[in-house]
Protein backbone atom coordinates (compact mmCIF):
# COMPACT_ATOMS: atom_id res chain seq x y z
CA UNK A 1 0.00 0.00 0.00
CA UNK A 2 2.76 2.45 0.92
CA UNK A 3 4.43 1.82 -2.48
CA UNK A 4 1.37 3.31 -4.19
CA UNK A 5 1.04 6.21 -1.78
CA UNK A 6 1.69 9.59 -3.46
CA UNK A 7 4.58 11.40 -1.74
CA UNK A 8 3.99 14.10 0.87
CA UNK A 9 3.68 17.60 -0.53
CA UNK A 10 6.66 19.88 0.02
CA UNK A 11 6.60 22.48 2.75
CA UNK A 12 6.14 26.13 1.85
CA UNK A 13 9.84 26.98 1.45
CA UNK A 14 10.54 23.94 -0.69
CA UNK A 15 7.41 24.43 -2.81
CA UNK A 16 8.35 28.05 -3.32
CA UNK A 17 11.85 27.12 -4.45
CA UNK A 18 10.51 24.46 -6.80
CA UNK A 19 8.05 26.90 -8.38
CA UNK A 20 10.84 29.45 -8.74
CA UNK A 21 12.84 26.74 -10.52
CA UNK A 22 10.01 26.15 -12.97
CA UNK A 23 7.82 23.48 -11.37
CA UNK A 24 4.15 23.76 -12.22
CA UNK A 25 1.77 25.02 -9.48
CA UNK A 26 -0.93 22.92 -11.15
CA UNK A 27 1.20 19.83 -10.72
CA UNK A 28 1.81 20.74 -7.07
CA UNK A 29 -1.92 21.07 -6.46
CA UNK A 30 -2.62 17.80 -8.27
CA UNK A 31 0.00 16.12 -6.08
CA UNK A 32 -1.66 17.47 -2.95
CA UNK A 33 -5.08 16.28 -4.14
CA UNK A 34 -3.65 12.83 -4.88
CA UNK A 35 -2.12 12.62 -1.40
CA UNK A 36 -5.43 13.68 0.15
CA UNK A 37 -7.36 11.15 -1.94
CA UNK A 38 -5.02 8.39 -0.79
CA UNK A 39 -5.05 9.24 2.92
CA UNK A 40 -8.17 11.10 3.91
CA UNK A 41 -10.36 8.02 4.06
CA UNK A 42 -8.25 6.99 7.06
CA UNK A 43 -7.31 10.35 8.55
CA UNK A 44 -10.44 12.46 7.96
CA UNK A 45 -8.56 15.75 7.89
CA UNK A 46 -10.90 17.41 5.39
CA UNK A 47 -14.55 18.35 5.82
CA UNK A 48 -14.82 20.03 2.40
CA UNK A 49 -12.41 19.41 -0.43
CA UNK A 50 -12.58 22.15 -3.08
CA UNK A 51 -10.66 20.33 -5.80
CA UNK A 52 -12.12 22.13 -8.83
CA UNK A 53 -11.67 25.53 -7.22
CA UNK A 54 -8.10 24.63 -6.27
CA UNK A 55 -7.17 23.43 -9.73
CA UNK A 56 -8.64 26.57 -11.31
CA UNK A 57 -6.67 28.76 -8.88
CA UNK A 58 -3.50 26.76 -9.54
CA UNK A 59 -3.90 27.19 -13.31
CA UNK A 60 -4.39 30.94 -12.86
CA UNK A 61 -1.30 31.09 -10.67
CA UNK A 62 0.66 29.12 -13.22
CA UNK A 63 -0.37 31.44 -16.04
CA UNK A 64 0.57 34.53 -14.02
CA UNK A 65 3.94 33.11 -13.02
CA UNK A 66 4.73 31.97 -16.57
CA UNK A 67 3.85 35.50 -17.72
CA UNK A 68 6.42 36.93 -15.31
CA UNK A 69 3.90 38.17 -12.74
CA UNK A 70 4.90 36.11 -9.71
CA UNK A 71 3.29 37.80 -6.72
CA UNK A 72 5.71 36.50 -4.11
CA UNK A 73 7.23 33.37 -2.62
CA UNK A 74 3.92 31.66 -1.88
CA UNK A 75 2.32 32.19 -5.29
CA UNK A 76 0.93 28.87 -6.51
CA UNK A 77 1.46 27.03 -3.19
CA UNK A 78 -1.52 25.14 -1.70
CA UNK A 79 -3.00 25.77 1.76
CA UNK A 80 -6.11 24.77 3.72
CA UNK A 81 -8.35 26.35 6.35
CA UNK A 82 -9.80 25.06 9.60
CA UNK A 83 -13.52 24.93 8.91
CA UNK A 84 -14.31 27.97 11.00
CA UNK A 85 -12.69 30.34 8.49
CA UNK A 86 -14.94 31.77 5.78
CA UNK A 87 -14.06 31.37 2.12
CA UNK A 88 -16.66 32.89 -0.21
CA UNK A 89 -18.75 30.24 -1.91
CA UNK A 90 -17.74 27.41 0.43
CA UNK A 91 -19.58 26.20 3.55
CA UNK A 92 -18.19 27.11 6.96
CA UNK A 93 -19.58 24.25 9.00
CA UNK A 94 -17.61 24.59 12.25
CA UNK A 95 -17.97 20.79 12.01
CA UNK A 96 -21.48 21.15 13.37
CA UNK A 97 -24.97 19.99 12.52
CA UNK A 98 -26.09 23.52 13.41
CA UNK A 99 -24.28 24.91 10.36
CA UNK A 100 -25.46 22.44 7.73
CA UNK A 101 -26.37 24.34 4.59
CA UNK A 102 -24.27 27.39 5.41
CA UNK A 103 -22.34 28.99 2.56
CA UNK A 104 -19.98 31.90 3.20
CA UNK A 105 -20.67 35.07 1.26
CA UNK A 106 -17.26 36.62 1.86
CA UNK A 107 -13.73 35.67 2.77
CA UNK A 108 -12.09 35.77 6.15
CA UNK A 109 -9.12 38.12 6.43
CA UNK A 110 -6.74 35.16 6.34
CA UNK A 111 -8.38 33.77 3.19
CA UNK A 112 -8.07 37.18 1.54
CA UNK A 113 -4.42 37.61 2.47
CA UNK A 114 -3.34 34.09 1.48
CA UNK A 115 -5.20 34.17 -1.83
CA UNK A 116 -3.93 37.67 -2.55
CA UNK A 117 -0.44 36.22 -2.14
CA UNK A 118 -1.40 33.73 -4.84
CA UNK A 119 -1.88 30.70 -2.61
CA UNK A 120 -4.26 27.94 -3.66
CA UNK A 121 -7.06 26.94 -1.28
CA UNK A 122 -7.54 23.15 -1.20
CA UNK A 123 -10.48 23.07 1.18
CA UNK A 124 -11.72 23.17 4.75
CA UNK A 125 -10.39 21.11 7.61
CA UNK A 126 -11.90 19.13 10.44
CA UNK A 127 -12.24 20.82 13.84
CA UNK A 128 -13.73 19.93 17.16
CA UNK A 129 -17.28 21.25 16.91
CA UNK A 130 -17.27 25.05 17.19
CA UNK A 131 -13.64 24.72 18.33
CA UNK A 132 -14.97 23.46 21.66
CA UNK A 133 -16.00 19.80 21.55
CA UNK A 134 -13.91 16.66 21.64
CA UNK A 135 -12.70 13.80 19.48
CA UNK A 136 -15.54 11.39 20.34
CA UNK A 137 -18.53 13.59 19.54
CA UNK A 138 -20.85 12.09 16.95
CA UNK A 139 -21.01 14.74 14.24
CA UNK A 140 -21.96 14.92 10.56
CA UNK A 141 -18.29 14.32 9.62
CA UNK A 142 -15.79 11.98 11.27
CA UNK A 143 -13.15 13.41 13.60
CA UNK A 144 -9.58 13.68 12.31
CA UNK A 145 -7.15 10.90 13.32
CA UNK A 146 -3.52 11.22 14.32
CA UNK A 147 -1.31 10.10 11.41
CA UNK A 148 1.35 8.73 13.80
CA UNK A 149 -1.22 6.31 15.21
CA UNK A 150 -4.88 6.60 14.35
CA UNK A 151 -5.89 5.16 17.74
CA UNK A 152 -4.37 8.22 19.42
CA UNK A 153 -5.69 11.74 19.83
CA UNK A 154 -4.77 14.25 17.13
CA UNK A 155 -5.22 17.17 19.52
CA UNK A 156 -7.72 19.91 19.07
CA UNK A 157 -9.56 21.83 18.26
CA UNK A 158 -7.59 22.43 15.03
CA UNK A 159 -7.35 18.67 14.61
CA UNK A 160 -7.66 18.55 10.82
CA UNK A 161 -5.03 21.28 10.51
CA UNK A 162 -2.48 19.29 12.51
CA UNK A 163 -3.31 16.06 10.71
CA UNK A 164 -3.21 17.57 7.20
CA UNK A 165 0.22 19.13 7.73
CA UNK A 166 1.73 16.15 9.56
CA UNK A 167 0.53 13.68 6.93
CA UNK A 168 1.93 15.73 4.06
CA UNK A 169 -1.41 16.70 2.52
CA UNK A 170 -0.62 20.42 2.65
CA UNK A 171 2.24 22.69 3.72
CA UNK A 172 0.15 25.29 5.53
CA UNK A 173 -3.08 24.88 7.46
CA UNK A 174 -4.72 27.70 9.35
CA UNK A 175 -5.94 26.99 12.87
CA UNK A 176 -7.40 28.89 15.77
CA UNK A 177 -6.33 28.87 19.41
CA UNK A 178 -8.58 29.83 22.33
CA UNK A 179 -6.85 27.72 24.99
CA UNK A 180 -4.29 25.81 22.93
CA UNK A 181 -6.15 24.71 19.80
CA UNK A 182 -3.24 25.44 17.45
CA UNK A 183 -0.42 24.33 19.73
CA UNK A 184 -2.01 21.10 21.01
CA UNK A 185 -2.66 19.49 17.60
CA UNK A 186 0.74 20.76 16.47
CA UNK A 187 2.32 19.07 19.50
CA UNK A 188 0.43 15.78 19.21
CA UNK A 189 0.93 15.58 15.43
CA UNK A 190 4.60 16.63 15.44
CA UNK A 191 4.42 19.92 13.54
CA UNK A 192 4.98 23.63 14.22
CA UNK A 193 2.05 25.70 15.47
CA UNK A 194 2.10 29.41 16.26
CA UNK A 195 -0.41 31.29 18.36
CA UNK A 196 0.64 34.86 17.63
CA UNK A 197 0.16 37.78 20.00
CA UNK A 198 -3.51 38.55 20.71
CA UNK A 199 -4.54 40.99 17.98
CA UNK A 200 -1.59 40.23 15.67
CA UNK A 201 -3.66 38.25 13.12
CA UNK A 202 -7.20 39.21 12.23
CA UNK A 203 -10.13 37.04 13.30
CA UNK A 204 -12.46 38.67 10.79
CA UNK A 205 -14.57 36.01 9.10
CA UNK A 206 -13.74 33.32 11.65
CA UNK A 207 -16.49 31.69 13.76
CA UNK A 208 -15.87 32.92 17.33
CA UNK A 209 -15.69 30.90 20.52
CA UNK A 210 -14.42 33.55 22.93
CA UNK A 211 -13.85 37.09 21.70
CA UNK A 212 -11.24 37.76 24.38
CA UNK A 213 -9.27 34.57 23.95
CA UNK A 214 -9.56 33.64 20.27
CA UNK A 215 -6.36 33.80 18.24
CA UNK A 216 -5.79 32.72 14.65
CA UNK A 217 -2.53 31.29 13.38
CA UNK A 218 -0.63 28.87 11.14
CA UNK A 219 0.41 25.22 11.45
CA UNK A 220 3.34 24.15 9.25
CA UNK A 221 5.96 21.41 9.08
CA UNK A 222 8.91 23.70 9.71
CA UNK A 223 9.67 26.93 11.48
CA UNK A 224 10.76 28.57 8.23
CA UNK A 225 7.38 27.71 6.70
CA UNK A 226 5.70 29.31 9.69
CA UNK A 227 7.75 32.48 9.16
CA UNK A 228 6.83 32.53 5.46
CA UNK A 229 3.15 32.27 6.35
CA UNK A 230 3.42 35.06 8.93
CA UNK A 231 4.96 37.36 6.31
CA UNK A 232 1.61 37.18 4.50
CA UNK A 233 -0.83 36.86 7.40
CA UNK A 234 0.30 39.62 9.76
CA UNK A 235 -1.17 43.09 9.54
CA UNK A 236 -3.77 45.38 11.03
CA UNK A 237 -7.41 44.73 10.09
CA UNK A 238 -9.92 47.39 11.18
CA UNK A 239 -12.73 44.86 10.71
CA UNK A 240 -11.47 42.99 13.79
CA UNK A 241 -11.97 45.18 16.88
CA UNK A 242 -9.08 43.44 18.64
CA UNK A 243 -6.67 43.79 15.73
CA UNK A 244 -3.57 45.59 16.93
CA UNK A 245 -2.58 48.74 15.03
CA UNK A 246 1.04 47.61 15.22
CA UNK A 247 3.16 47.20 12.09
CA UNK A 248 3.96 43.54 11.39
CA UNK A 249 7.47 42.28 11.96
CA UNK A 250 9.85 40.88 9.40
CA UNK A 251 9.70 37.21 10.33
CA UNK A 252 12.44 36.09 7.93
CA UNK A 253 15.16 38.71 8.37
CA UNK A 254 16.72 37.28 11.53
CA UNK A 255 15.35 33.77 11.27
CA UNK A 256 18.83 32.28 11.00
CA UNK A 257 20.56 34.64 13.43
CA UNK A 258 20.91 31.86 16.00
CA UNK A 259 20.55 32.00 19.76
CA UNK A 260 24.09 32.88 20.84
CA UNK A 261 23.84 35.55 23.50
CA UNK A 262 20.06 35.25 23.91
CA UNK A 263 18.53 34.63 27.34
CA UNK A 264 16.02 31.80 27.49
CA UNK A 265 13.86 31.56 30.60
CA UNK A 266 12.79 28.31 32.19
CA UNK A 267 10.11 28.34 34.87
CA UNK A 268 10.68 25.45 37.31
CA UNK A 269 7.45 25.96 39.25
CA UNK A 270 5.34 26.09 36.07
CA UNK A 271 7.04 22.87 34.93
CA UNK A 272 6.44 21.17 38.29
CA UNK A 273 2.77 22.14 38.23
CA UNK A 274 2.51 20.69 34.70
CA UNK A 275 2.85 17.09 35.99
CA UNK A 276 4.96 16.05 33.00
CA UNK A 277 5.65 12.41 32.33
CA UNK A 278 9.28 11.31 32.29
CA UNK A 279 9.66 11.41 28.50
CA UNK A 280 8.24 14.92 28.16
CA UNK A 281 10.28 16.15 31.08
CA UNK A 282 13.43 14.71 29.49
CA UNK A 283 12.55 16.30 26.13
CA UNK A 284 12.11 19.69 27.80
CA UNK A 285 15.45 19.38 29.60
CA UNK A 286 17.16 18.26 26.40
CA UNK A 287 15.74 21.25 24.53
CA UNK A 288 17.13 23.62 27.18
CA UNK A 289 20.51 21.88 27.04
CA UNK A 290 20.61 22.11 23.25
CA UNK A 291 19.79 25.82 23.30
CA UNK A 292 22.58 26.30 25.85
CA UNK A 293 24.98 24.37 23.61
CA UNK A 294 24.00 26.72 20.78
CA UNK A 295 25.08 29.66 22.93
CA UNK A 296 21.93 30.74 24.74
CA UNK A 297 22.02 31.61 28.42
CA UNK A 298 19.42 29.65 30.36
CA UNK A 299 17.93 31.63 33.25
CA UNK A 300 15.31 30.68 35.83
CA UNK A 301 12.11 32.73 35.82
CA UNK A 302 8.92 32.71 37.84
CA UNK A 303 5.55 32.80 36.11
CA UNK A 304 2.23 33.49 37.87
CA UNK A 305 0.66 30.38 39.44
CA UNK A 306 -1.08 28.08 36.96
CA UNK A 307 -4.27 28.10 39.03
CA UNK A 308 -4.56 31.86 38.67
CA UNK A 309 -3.88 31.86 34.93
CA UNK A 310 -6.24 28.93 34.36
CA UNK A 311 -9.04 30.65 36.28
CA UNK A 312 -8.62 33.81 34.22
CA UNK A 313 -8.77 31.90 30.93
CA UNK A 314 -11.58 29.54 31.83
CA UNK A 315 -13.95 32.14 33.26
CA UNK A 316 -13.64 34.44 30.25
CA UNK A 317 -13.79 31.59 27.73
CA UNK A 318 -16.77 29.93 29.37
CA UNK A 319 -18.80 33.11 29.75
CA UNK A 320 -18.15 34.30 26.21
CA UNK A 321 -18.76 30.87 24.68
CA UNK A 322 -22.06 30.61 26.50
CA UNK A 323 -23.08 34.12 25.44
CA UNK A 324 -22.49 33.20 21.79
CA UNK A 325 -24.31 29.86 21.94
CA UNK A 326 -27.00 30.43 24.57
CA UNK A 327 -29.95 30.65 22.21
CA UNK A 328 -29.11 27.40 20.42
CA UNK A 329 -28.35 25.72 23.75
CA UNK A 330 -31.88 26.58 24.85
CA UNK A 331 -33.72 25.90 21.62
CA UNK A 332 -31.88 23.05 19.87
CA UNK A 333 -29.40 21.50 22.31
CA UNK A 334 -29.79 18.10 20.68
CA UNK A 335 -28.08 19.41 17.53
CA UNK A 336 -24.74 19.80 19.31
CA UNK A 337 -22.49 16.86 20.03
CA UNK A 338 -22.68 15.86 23.69
CA UNK A 339 -19.17 17.08 24.57
CA UNK A 340 -19.61 20.44 22.86
CA UNK A 341 -23.01 21.01 24.41
CA UNK A 342 -21.95 20.23 27.94
CA UNK A 343 -18.72 22.25 27.73
CA UNK A 344 -20.62 25.26 26.46
CA UNK A 345 -23.28 24.82 29.15
CA UNK A 346 -20.67 25.15 31.92
CA UNK A 347 -20.62 28.84 30.93
CA UNK A 348 -24.04 29.16 32.58
CA UNK A 349 -22.26 28.90 35.96
CA UNK A 350 -20.16 32.05 35.47
CA UNK A 351 -21.34 35.06 37.43
CA UNK A 352 -21.00 38.67 36.32
CA UNK A 353 -18.57 39.57 39.12
CA UNK A 354 -16.35 36.57 38.32
CA UNK A 355 -16.21 37.59 34.67
CA UNK A 356 -15.18 41.13 35.62
CA UNK A 357 -12.62 39.84 38.12
CA UNK A 358 -11.15 37.58 35.46
CA UNK A 359 -10.82 40.55 33.12
CA UNK A 360 -9.05 42.52 35.87
CA UNK A 361 -6.81 39.56 36.65
CA UNK A 362 -5.95 39.24 32.97
CA UNK A 363 -4.30 42.63 32.92
CA UNK A 364 -2.35 41.84 36.10
CA UNK A 365 -0.99 38.46 34.99
CA UNK A 366 -0.15 39.83 31.55
CA UNK A 367 1.92 42.52 33.26
CA UNK A 368 3.67 39.86 35.37
CA UNK A 369 4.63 37.89 32.27
CA UNK A 370 5.72 41.13 30.56
CA UNK A 371 8.05 41.70 33.51
CA UNK A 372 9.49 38.20 33.19
CA UNK A 373 10.08 38.75 29.47
CA UNK A 374 11.87 42.04 30.19
CA UNK A 375 14.64 39.84 31.60
CA UNK A 376 14.80 37.19 28.89
CA UNK A 377 14.19 36.87 25.16
CA UNK A 378 11.82 33.90 25.34
CA UNK A 379 10.49 31.35 27.81
CA UNK A 380 10.88 27.61 27.16
CA UNK A 381 8.15 25.53 28.78
CA UNK A 382 6.00 22.47 28.11
CA UNK A 383 2.88 22.55 25.93
CA UNK A 384 1.78 18.96 26.58
CA UNK A 385 2.35 16.80 29.63
CA UNK A 386 2.81 13.61 27.61
CA UNK A 387 2.55 12.31 24.06
CA UNK A 388 -0.95 11.97 22.56
CA UNK A 389 -3.23 9.74 24.65
CA UNK A 390 -5.43 7.10 23.09
CA UNK A 391 -8.69 8.62 21.81
CA UNK A 392 -10.65 6.47 24.26
CA UNK A 393 -8.58 7.85 27.15
CA UNK A 394 -9.23 11.54 26.41
CA UNK A 395 -11.10 13.42 29.15
CA UNK A 396 -14.43 14.12 27.42
CA UNK A 397 -16.17 15.45 30.51
CA UNK A 398 -17.90 18.85 30.66
CA UNK A 399 -15.03 20.45 32.60
CA UNK A 400 -11.50 19.08 32.30
CA UNK A 401 -9.67 18.42 35.56
CA UNK A 402 -6.31 19.07 33.90
CA UNK A 403 -6.27 22.32 31.97
CA UNK A 404 -3.95 22.58 28.96
CA UNK A 405 -0.47 24.01 29.54
CA UNK A 406 -1.07 26.29 26.58
CA UNK A 407 -4.00 28.22 28.08
CA UNK A 408 -2.05 30.61 30.31
CA UNK A 409 -0.71 32.40 27.24
CA UNK A 410 -4.15 32.85 25.77
CA UNK A 411 -4.97 34.60 29.02
CA UNK A 412 -1.89 36.83 28.88
CA UNK A 413 -2.02 37.22 25.07
CA UNK A 414 1.70 36.56 24.59
CA UNK A 415 2.82 34.79 21.40
CA UNK A 416 3.53 31.10 21.91
CA UNK A 417 4.84 28.48 19.54
CA UNK A 418 4.82 24.67 19.64
CA UNK A 419 7.85 23.01 18.08
CA UNK A 420 8.58 19.26 17.81
CA UNK A 421 10.97 18.05 20.51
CA UNK A 422 11.45 14.35 19.92
CA UNK A 423 9.49 11.15 20.18
CA UNK A 424 8.13 8.98 22.95
CA UNK A 425 9.02 5.31 23.13
CA UNK A 426 5.72 4.48 21.44
CA UNK A 427 6.73 6.56 18.42
CA UNK A 428 4.42 9.51 19.07
CA UNK A 429 5.73 13.07 18.85
CA UNK A 430 6.80 15.20 21.81
CA UNK A 431 6.84 18.98 21.77
CA UNK A 432 7.91 22.07 23.69
CA UNK A 433 6.49 25.58 23.83
CA UNK A 434 8.31 28.89 23.39
CA UNK A 435 6.66 32.06 24.69
CA UNK A 436 7.77 35.53 23.67
CA UNK A 437 7.25 39.23 24.09
CA UNK A 438 4.14 40.77 22.60
CA UNK A 439 4.48 41.31 18.85
CA UNK A 440 7.92 39.72 18.82
CA UNK A 441 7.00 36.56 16.96
CA UNK A 442 10.22 37.07 15.01
CA UNK A 443 12.25 36.26 18.13
CA UNK A 444 10.19 33.14 18.83
CA UNK A 445 10.72 31.95 15.27
CA UNK A 446 14.46 32.69 15.51
CA UNK A 447 14.84 30.60 18.67
CA UNK A 448 12.66 27.81 17.31
CA UNK A 449 14.56 27.77 14.01
CA UNK A 450 17.90 27.35 15.80
CA UNK A 451 16.49 24.55 17.93
CA UNK A 452 14.72 22.79 15.05
CA UNK A 453 17.77 22.82 12.80
CA UNK A 454 20.07 21.53 15.52
CA UNK A 455 17.64 18.88 16.79
CA UNK A 456 16.44 17.68 13.39
CA UNK A 457 13.18 16.15 14.59
CA UNK A 458 11.24 17.38 11.56
CA UNK A 459 13.07 14.88 9.35
CA UNK A 460 10.93 12.03 10.68
CA UNK A 461 7.55 11.38 9.01
CA UNK A 462 4.47 9.52 10.22
CA UNK A 463 4.48 5.82 9.23
CA UNK A 464 1.64 5.99 6.72
Amino acid at each position, binding site marked *: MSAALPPPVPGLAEASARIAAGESPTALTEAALARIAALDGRLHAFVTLAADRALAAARRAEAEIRAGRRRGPLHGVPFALKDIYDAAGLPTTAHSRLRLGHVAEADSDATERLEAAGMVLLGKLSTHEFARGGPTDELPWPNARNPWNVEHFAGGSSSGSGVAVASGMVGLAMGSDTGGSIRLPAAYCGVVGLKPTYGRLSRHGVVPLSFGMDHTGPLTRTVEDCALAMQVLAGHDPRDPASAPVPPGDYLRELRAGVAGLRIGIAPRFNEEALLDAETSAALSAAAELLALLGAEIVEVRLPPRRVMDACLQVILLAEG*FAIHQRD*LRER*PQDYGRVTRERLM*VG*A*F*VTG*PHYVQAQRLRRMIAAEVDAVLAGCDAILCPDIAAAAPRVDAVDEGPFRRQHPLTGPFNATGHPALAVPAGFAANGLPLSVQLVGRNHDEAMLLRVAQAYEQAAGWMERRPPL
Partner: protein
Amino acid sequence: MPQDLRAEFRACLARAGISVPPEREPAMYEAYLAYAELASVLDEPYPYAAEPAAVFTPAAPGAGRAAGRS
Protein backbone atom coordinates in the same frame (compact mmCIF):
# COMPACT_ATOMS: atom_id res chain seq x y z
CA MET B 1 -24.01 22.51 52.45
CA PRO B 2 -23.82 20.00 49.57
CA GLN B 3 -27.62 20.29 49.31
CA ASP B 4 -27.28 24.09 49.02
CA LEU B 5 -24.72 23.71 46.25
CA ARG B 6 -26.95 21.34 44.33
CA ALA B 7 -29.79 23.85 44.63
CA GLU B 8 -27.49 26.59 43.41
CA PHE B 9 -26.40 24.39 40.49
CA ARG B 10 -30.01 23.81 39.47
CA ALA B 11 -30.76 27.50 39.87
CA CYS B 12 -27.91 28.40 37.51
CA LEU B 13 -29.29 26.09 34.83
CA ALA B 14 -32.85 27.34 35.35
CA ARG B 15 -31.78 30.98 35.19
CA ALA B 16 -29.90 30.26 31.97
CA GLY B 17 -32.95 28.50 30.56
CA ILE B 18 -31.11 25.30 29.76
CA SER B 19 -31.89 21.76 30.74
CA VAL B 20 -29.70 18.74 31.33
CA PRO B 21 -30.96 15.17 30.85
CA PRO B 22 -31.24 13.37 34.22
CA GLU B 23 -28.57 10.84 33.29
CA ARG B 24 -26.05 13.66 32.65
CA GLU B 25 -26.86 15.68 35.76
CA PRO B 26 -24.21 14.00 37.94
CA ALA B 27 -21.46 14.81 35.42
CA MET B 28 -22.67 18.39 35.04
CA TYR B 29 -22.89 18.82 38.81
CA GLU B 30 -19.33 17.57 39.15
CA ALA B 31 -18.33 20.11 36.49
CA TYR B 32 -20.13 22.80 38.44
CA LEU B 33 -18.19 21.96 41.59
CA ALA B 34 -14.87 21.86 39.72
CA TYR B 35 -15.64 25.16 38.04
CA ALA B 36 -16.64 26.79 41.34
CA GLU B 37 -13.43 25.59 42.96
CA LEU B 38 -11.32 27.04 40.14
CA ALA B 39 -13.24 30.34 40.04
CA SER B 40 -12.92 30.83 43.80
CA VAL B 41 -9.47 32.31 43.17
CA LEU B 42 -11.32 35.31 41.73
CA ASP B 43 -13.01 36.14 45.02
CA GLU B 44 -10.01 37.95 46.44
CA PRO B 45 -10.13 41.74 46.23
CA TYR B 46 -7.95 43.51 43.68
CA PRO B 47 -6.69 47.09 43.88
CA TYR B 48 -9.09 49.78 42.63
CA ALA B 49 -6.56 50.59 39.92
CA ALA B 50 -6.85 47.08 38.44
CA GLU B 51 -9.04 47.84 35.43
CA PRO B 52 -10.52 45.02 33.32
CA ALA B 53 -8.53 44.04 30.24
CA ALA B 54 -11.59 44.45 28.07
CA VAL B 55 -12.30 48.13 28.75
CA PHE B 56 -14.03 49.88 25.90
CA THR B 57 -11.87 52.17 23.81
CA PRO B 58 -13.87 54.71 21.81
CA ALA B 59 -12.84 55.25 18.22
CA ALA B 60 -10.41 58.08 17.52
CA PRO B 61 -11.86 61.35 16.21
CA GLY B 62 -12.56 61.07 12.51
CA ALA B 63 -12.65 57.29 12.51
CA GLY B 64 -16.28 57.24 11.37
CA ARG B 65 -15.52 59.55 8.45
CA ALA B 66 -12.49 57.45 7.53
CA ALA B 67 -14.78 54.43 7.36
CA GLY B 68 -16.85 56.21 4.72
CA ARG B 69 -19.83 57.36 6.80
CA SER B 70 -21.49 60.60 5.84
